[in-house]
């Protein structure tokens, strides 16, 4: 019996409270060597995830180590609901002195493109990028295809016959199917689902030839030898799955850029930006944090502020294009 994640998290939630208390009476701690002094003594990381969700877990792992590196106290706050719109408003209307920072995934970008939230991308900017969530091509154990290359060759031999599963219709996984179709000039049907678990059933019962998804959702099935990973959409092999070749190795040059980073309001304090740029590379070297990265099958993809901004602009443009192409949105 493992300790439930929720329970562990509620215990963890006490950590920032405990850290904040001495922060009130004591002067700000000194940051680690090479990290500029942070302009404010306390930072709140906002996430649109509910407790236990992806962004929430990441934030709570970060605040275990970041306070020592940056010399500040930190807390995670869940501003969930409205698919990230509420969190965006909180950031856009909050202080710009460095005291509130948003933990981001593609969710808020999609929300901003697909609806008209009170505060959208024009009010925010990328601070730094930290990780990519690698996406895997998976088949059931009985599948005759041992590699992605074999799967694609079979698809080419039988045009229009293969069905590839993707999680949500607006998710990156579906975009990857479309990208593979284009890059490998094959014709397969992309079948979207209501989530990863939903797709998993259809891969396992043979309704789909293969599916694209994240490692964490299928770990149990892989351990039970009911599912195999035949390719990963990452620039290089992922430490958590050293035996799974990248799609690039198998002749399909596509990398999934499902990012996990930080964002802030426009006019964010330059001193704070500099501190984050120095702190994140130190954070990913902390052994305990490194273990968590490996366990979570994340890929380091640190980008400094300017690079992250350029990446985000590219990402937003490609999302808009994809949504238009698929008929998900009609406006640009």
């Amino acid at each position: 019996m493992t300790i439930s994640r929720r329970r562990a998290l509620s215990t963890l939630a006490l950590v920032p409270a405990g850290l904040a208390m001495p922060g009130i009476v004591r002067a700000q701690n000194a940051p680690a060597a090479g990290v500029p002094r942070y302009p404010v003594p306390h930072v709140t990381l906002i996430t649109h995830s509910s407790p236990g969700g992806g962004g929430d877990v990441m934030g709570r792992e970060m605040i275990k180590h970041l306070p020592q590196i940056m010399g500040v106290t930190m807390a995670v706050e869940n501003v969930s609901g409205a698919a990230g719109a509420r969190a965006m408003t909180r950031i856009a209307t909050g202080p710009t002195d460095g005291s509130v920072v948003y933990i981001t995934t593609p969710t808020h970008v999609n929300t901003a493109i697909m609806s008209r939230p009170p505060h959208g991308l024009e009010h925010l900017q990328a601070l730094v990028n930290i990780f990519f969530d690698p996406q895997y091509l998976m088949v059931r154990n009985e599948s005759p295809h041992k590699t992605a290359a074999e799967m694609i060759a079979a698809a080419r031999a039988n045009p229009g016959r293969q069905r590839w599963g993707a999680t949500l219709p607006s998710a990156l996984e579906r975009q990857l199917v479309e990208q593979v179709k284009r890059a490998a000039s094959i014709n397969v049907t992309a079948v979207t689902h209501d989530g990863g678990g939903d797709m998993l059933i259809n891969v396992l019962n043979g309704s789909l030839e293969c599916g694209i998804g994240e490692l964490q959702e299928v770990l149990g099935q892989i351990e039970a030898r009911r599912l195999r990973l035949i390719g990963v959409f990452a620039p290089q092999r992922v430490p958590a799955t050293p035996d799974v070749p990248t799609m690039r190795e198998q002749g399909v040059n596509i990398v999934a850029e499902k990012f996990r980073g930080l964002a802030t309001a426009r006019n964010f304090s330059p001193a704070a930006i500099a501190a984050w740029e120095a702190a994140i590379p130190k954070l990913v070297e902390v052994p305990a944090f490194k273990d968590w990265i490996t366990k979570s099958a994340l890929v380091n993809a640190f980008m400094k502020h300017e690079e992250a901004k350029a990446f985000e602009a590219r990402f937003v443009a490609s999302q808009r294009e994809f949504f238009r192409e698929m008929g998900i949105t009609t406006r640009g």
Partner: protein
Amino acid sequence: MTGLSVAWTTLTGTWALPAALMGLVWGIIGGALPGISASITIALLLPFTFGLDPTIAIIMLASAYVGAEYGGSIPAILIRTPGTNSAAATAIDGYEMHKQGRSGEALGLSLVAGTIGGLIGIFMLILLAEPLADIALAFTPPAYFSLGLLGLSVIATLSEGSMIKGFITGTLGLMIASVGPDPVSGVTRFTYDSPELLGGIRPIVVMIGIFAVAELLSQAGQPPWDRSSAQTRIKLPSLRTLWSLKRSLLLGSGIGVFEGVTPGAGGTVAAFLSYNEAKRWSANPELFGKGSPEAIVAPEAANNTVAGTALVPTMSFGIPGSNSTAILLGGMLLHGLQPGPMLFEKHPDFVYGVFSGLVMANLLQFPVGIIILTPCIWLVNRPKPWLMSYILALVLTGVYAVDHSLFDVALCIFFGVLGYLMRLFGYPFLPMVLGVILGRLVESQYRRALAISGGEHAIFVTDPISLGLLIACALLVSYSLYTTYLRPARDAAEARPESPSTN
């Protein structure tokens, strides 16, 4: 054996036991308050489970269901006002016994019969749920579609007299389910560019509005219920008395098992059915209606059995058969658990944890039921306006807590008013809830099946499970059509020659 060890670990190593106890106490109190049905009792508790581990949360909610089924019999016996619908059958002879000065005896019979029935229900749940769910992986998109359709066809049997009205509210539910992203293409529908609607409307907001808020509004328009004497004490039946009642007990539980696993029936039907059957098979049918112990034992055993067995279709297939299980299902969804064939596959710890929690709740029901009687009577005797306003505040706070959204609160009030109007004009609301819950499943699986088959509808009949479910669906609908339209017409035709003309 792993199931048993998970159950044991859950019971000893977690908050399962206190959660079951709290759920039970809440359930008995909620059930005892007239107007607060079992489903509302569960809905009210739901927001307080948000921070909990999903297993603990569902144990608490299911224990409240168990408690409410017993609690409902307290005012039924003491003031002839059933606390829950399913206790209405108990009120008939229970109140008679009360008038004869045998209230303690009646309450004791209800408690013992409820505990026995409840344990039988849980036993059947453990026995039936997993084998049924074992076919999980065989459920392809066409099979899921047909399953959802079967769930929706229950509307035909749920419509309480008016099938047309049932279909109207069912369609309304389907329309609500279509708000949000299109399940296949991702195009946003009926969201009017509002980020609040981007994820669709949460079924739980609809349910709390339709069940709880609407009930409170409707209670507000009715006169206060009677007061009861605070001096009542429970008198437990002797073993010999129980043995003499074994036939009614078994009849009640047997009917409870059957009605529980059949979606659409629920505790009320089971209670009345077993009241009738107990009378039919009784050695002293003439005592029924005059304070017969059998007439209390049978319906109470039945509705408590249903509390367990109604979880079979809910957990194995994700199809709620009653208001209460609909709320429980909403609770599971809220905690990130998708009830259905995959639940047993993916979350066995949850399933066995809930089973063990329910066994405990049923055992605890016995001592708790004795202790809690006096505070329950005190609470029922409070002025109705106080109770109703406190409960409304509790409901809306809970809805706000789901997503920290005032939009949801407004939506819930809207659905409350809608539900009130539906009651006023005799529109059944369970079809609407089924539509909200199953609409998305039916639509997305239908279109997914067609994506897989390349647009061929034959996939729905070539998949054996799908075919079987579609046949079941057709049978269910034709039977309902027969009982609603053809049989009354035939009976009327037969009756006509004998009845004198009224013109």
